[in-house]
């Protein structure tokens, strides 16, 4: 095989344009040709999207100015996710970006000291010890410089934005850098008779687009990775039974919150993602427990603003493509698997696929060793995220509907069962550096969902009561100072990066 020069991306949308933009920036269009095929006839799934902090690395790779990005995509800032009614009706907790508390001399994690404090009567509202959670609760936000002296906590954040606007923005970015966009539908694929590699795709109008490497961003259709290569699909609906989402935007009725809200419902959950100009909403559910019509009706009933469209139904199956990379084809986005947007991981999974592809991208021959490695690392990433999402359903007191009865009683993967067991015994949410969600995330979600550890690390007992009180007080004070110094989220948006009215209209 020759040098890999011509890259063909099949499908636009968030995944396709993220891939195109990254390729255009990193490989450039002098040595490589980059063609993206998309059809205006085929809709994209993108609704309001919430993200997690690593998106910043992606934007930094592209060299995108943050204020411009926020303006162009009508974005708001996101400090975490508020979970309502998940443990039981009436309950709520916050899953923040950031760290829980701060280091206390002694060498064990903060949560052990906190657990000791709570077990002796302290306030179990852990949000008070997380700057992001406290700021979110008060509707405040600002970009704060990383502390030099370690005295004040930092503030980790991501964005909530209009995914269609992001894709459009990245399309402009890509086309300016020489990416070719071909309008059309792929109707046929030519493969090399010996190697099985894809050599070209044919469009409905007869155009033939040849390439050395193909990126399948065709969404659930998975035209190439499944249609051509039969890569296989691991169906995870036993653990994640939701298979539908009804989505609808509504009018903005209040200042946008610097967080996403997820509310557990009778047969699933409802998202609320505030953008600058409107609010995204959706009901993610299982059609075994509630009909599409009923879910749509309930969603409309529960909006806090006037709906701006009719609810759109998305149909999916939770799971992962068995091999995301086969021969000269890589699946990116929904073609590579689907996990519901409960922890805002969709765009992150796109980003990781693209970044991993760079690390392993063939300069010449496509090396099966690197393909195996890609698939191995992607499996591990998906498994971790999957376990984390399952935990939200498994760990709950809710038993009030058949749906929740199923979730709390379902069997779970062994990897997750072991994690829950250790957390129950000693509040230890051990994670490895390769996992996306780390200790604070696991702690917040498991504790918030009602898994209260029976004990904590014995080293936490080595501190005297006075020392413990003092340490906790000084952490709370630092958080208080940090949060008090912040403007409201709405003011910050207004000052720094509010969308021009023209951008809103587009």
């Amino acid at each position, binding site marked *: 095989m020759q040098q890999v020069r011509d890259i063909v991306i099949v499908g636009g949308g968030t995944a396709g344009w993220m891939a195109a933009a990254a390729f255009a920036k990193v490989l450039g269009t002098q040595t490589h040709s980059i063609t993206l095929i998309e059809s205006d006839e085929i809709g994209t799934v993108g609704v309001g999207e919430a993200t997690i902090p690593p998106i910043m690395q992606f934007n930094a790779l592209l060299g995108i100015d943050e204020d411009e990005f926020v303006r162009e995509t009508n974005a708001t800032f996101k400090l975490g996710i508020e979970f309502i009614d998940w443990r039981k009706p009436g309950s709520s907790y916050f899953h923040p970006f950031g760290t829980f508390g701060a280091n206390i001399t002694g060498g064990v994690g903060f949560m052990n000291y906190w657990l000791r404090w709570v077990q002796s009567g302290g306030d179990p509202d852990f949000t008070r010890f997380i700057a992001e959670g406290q700021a979110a609760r008060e509707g405040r936000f600002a970009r704060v410089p990383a502390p030099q002296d370690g005295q004040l906590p930092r503030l980790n954040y991501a964005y909530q934005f209009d995914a269609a606007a992001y894709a459009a923005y990245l399309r402009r970015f890509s086309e300016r850098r020489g990416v070719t966009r071909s309008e059309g539908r792929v109707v046929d694929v030519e493969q090399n008779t010996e190697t099985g590699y894809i050599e070209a795709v044919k469009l409905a109008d007869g155009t033939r687009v040849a390439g050395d490497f193909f990126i399948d961003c065709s969404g659930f259709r998975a035209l190439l990775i499944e249609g051509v290569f039969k890569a296989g699909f691991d169906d995870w609906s036993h653990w994640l039974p939701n298979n539908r989402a009804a989505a609808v935007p509504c009018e903005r009725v209040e200042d946008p919150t610097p967080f996403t809200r997820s509310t557990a419902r009778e047969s699933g959950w409802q998202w609320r993602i505030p953008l600058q100009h409107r609010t995204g909403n959706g009901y993610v559910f299982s059609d075994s427990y509630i009909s599409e019509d009923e879910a749509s009706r309930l969603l409309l009933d529960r909006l806090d603003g006037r709906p701006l469209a009719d609810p759109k139904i998305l149909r999916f199956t939770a799971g992962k493509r068995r091999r995301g990379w086969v021969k000269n084809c890589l699946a990116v986005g929904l073609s590579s698997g689907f996990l519901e947007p409960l922890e805002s991981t969709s765009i992150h999974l796109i980003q990781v696929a693209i970044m991993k592809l*760079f690390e392993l991208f063939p300069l010449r021959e496509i090396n099966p060793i690197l393909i195996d490695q890609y698939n191995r690392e992607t499996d591990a990433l998906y498994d971790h995220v999957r376990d984390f999402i399952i935990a939200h359903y498994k760990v709950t007191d809710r038993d009030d509907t058949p749906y929740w009865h199923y979730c709390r009683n379902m069997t779970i993967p062994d990897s997750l069962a072991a994690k829950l067991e250790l957390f129950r015994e000693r509040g230890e949410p051990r994670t490895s550096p390769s996992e996306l969600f780390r200790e604070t995330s696991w702690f917040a979600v498991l504790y918030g969902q009602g898994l209260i550890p029976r004990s904590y690390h014995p080293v936490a007992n080595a501190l005297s009561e006075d020392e413990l009180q003092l340490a906790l007080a000084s952490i709370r004070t630092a958080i208080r100072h940090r949060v008090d110094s912040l403007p409201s989220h709405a003011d910050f948006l207004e000052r720094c990066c509010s969308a021009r009215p023209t951008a809103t209209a587009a």
Partner: protein
Amino acid sequence: MSRRIEQIVVVGADAPAWMAAAALHSSLGGAGIRVRVIELPTLLQPVDAYSALPELGGFLYRIGLEEQLLFNICKAVPIAGQRFSNWSGAAPPFLHGYDRPPPPGAGLGFTQLWIKGRQKGLRTAFENFFLGAMAAKAGRVPVAVQGDELRATFGYNIDASAYSALLRHFTVQGGVESKAARVADVETDGDRITAIVLDDGERVEADLFVDASGPQTVLIGRMPGAEFESWRQWLPCDRMLVASGKALRPLPGFSQISAFRQGWLGLFPLQDRTAVTAVYDSGEISDKNMLDNLSTLANLPIGGDAVVSSLCQGARRRTWVGNCVAIGESAFSLEPLDAVQLHIAHFCISQLMTLFPVEAGAFPEAELYDRIIRRAAINLRDFQAAHYKLNRRFDMPLWDRCRDAALPETLQRKLDNFTARGRIPLNDDETFEEQAWESLLIGHGVMPQSYDPRVDALPEQDHIALTQARLNDIVGLVDGMASVDEFIAGADSQSQKEAEAFG
């Protein structure tokens, strides 16, 4: 009814046992947990030395022991890297220096740039671009002024008996009770130890027993499911000879590991002597011949104090059974190569501390401990096995066998990935991170075939300028460092007072 742990008994000898006792006591003593050591007869000889990784400094800091005491009392020498020679025919020696990883988010590692540079005709060796390696080569100690991207640190060569005695003194002074004895019997009930019986008849009970007895595995060796799994097929040497020669002047900044026909020879500089270790295959050379050849191989007169022992590289299948936890070489045992000896104990102790049981009941922590220790052991084994596998010493039975041996899948994957793309797929619980693996593999002659395409985004002129600047920065930083002798003299005067306190 479960209750909290009150009594821990550590059974073992020498540094690993005292490190375990000191760590447990300093963290848990304040929480009312008592630690007692049953001190077995020492396994050390006066010639023995420990070669330790930089993390030992952090361990000492955590238990509250001054690092300077190593230099003042334990004849220690700061070591910025390991130098490997004669592993690959005519290929030059290479250094594995203790560079610190670049800060997170620093982008593409330098290695990718180097690979492309190499393909474009760059002839400068990989190690020249790493601060630790260059400090080691220059006999300097990487401390004080360092760059943002270029940071290195040092490990230690230590007199084993002096270090063990120092730890013992420190631990006992700190309030840990100890008793010198042998274990006559271990009473068990299913998979739990109810008591150990000492040779004087005393019956010792505890909530948790820590086996720090090294290869003797006095406790874990008797537990169900903890059979020994040998790794001889990848680490073929079965004998070790330790001796000493005179001190090197000036003191070098590295330990020297040279391959020879039947094994490898290590020269570990100490302040008062050079510890000489030969690790070899007894099927290829007898102990007597080894001893006869030692001076010639080491290029150093060897004292008459040589000691021979056997090696058994491998791991216990389970390392935490019931209320018995194995640490150090009771858990798994490797070669005295890459400075991992004390690290094995340190790593196990750290994991035991992290997972220290909250109750003296069912120990749900055991399974995770087992898993972590096994992963770490395999990662370390693979690092050592790579030296053997990648040798280029042809027509010598031991080395031919090693080259032909099938590798563990874990190591094969690393090798394949590195060959294809210069990328090391790290596992969980790796001791050695990317740069260490890269030094190892490139040093042994593995040359990646391709690099990350993001490197091509850098114009060639910038690439060359960046490469040159890195070399210059390193030279400048190394120039500013103290020599090993100067460093030791400085540490010496600083720690005079502490030393007096220990007599």
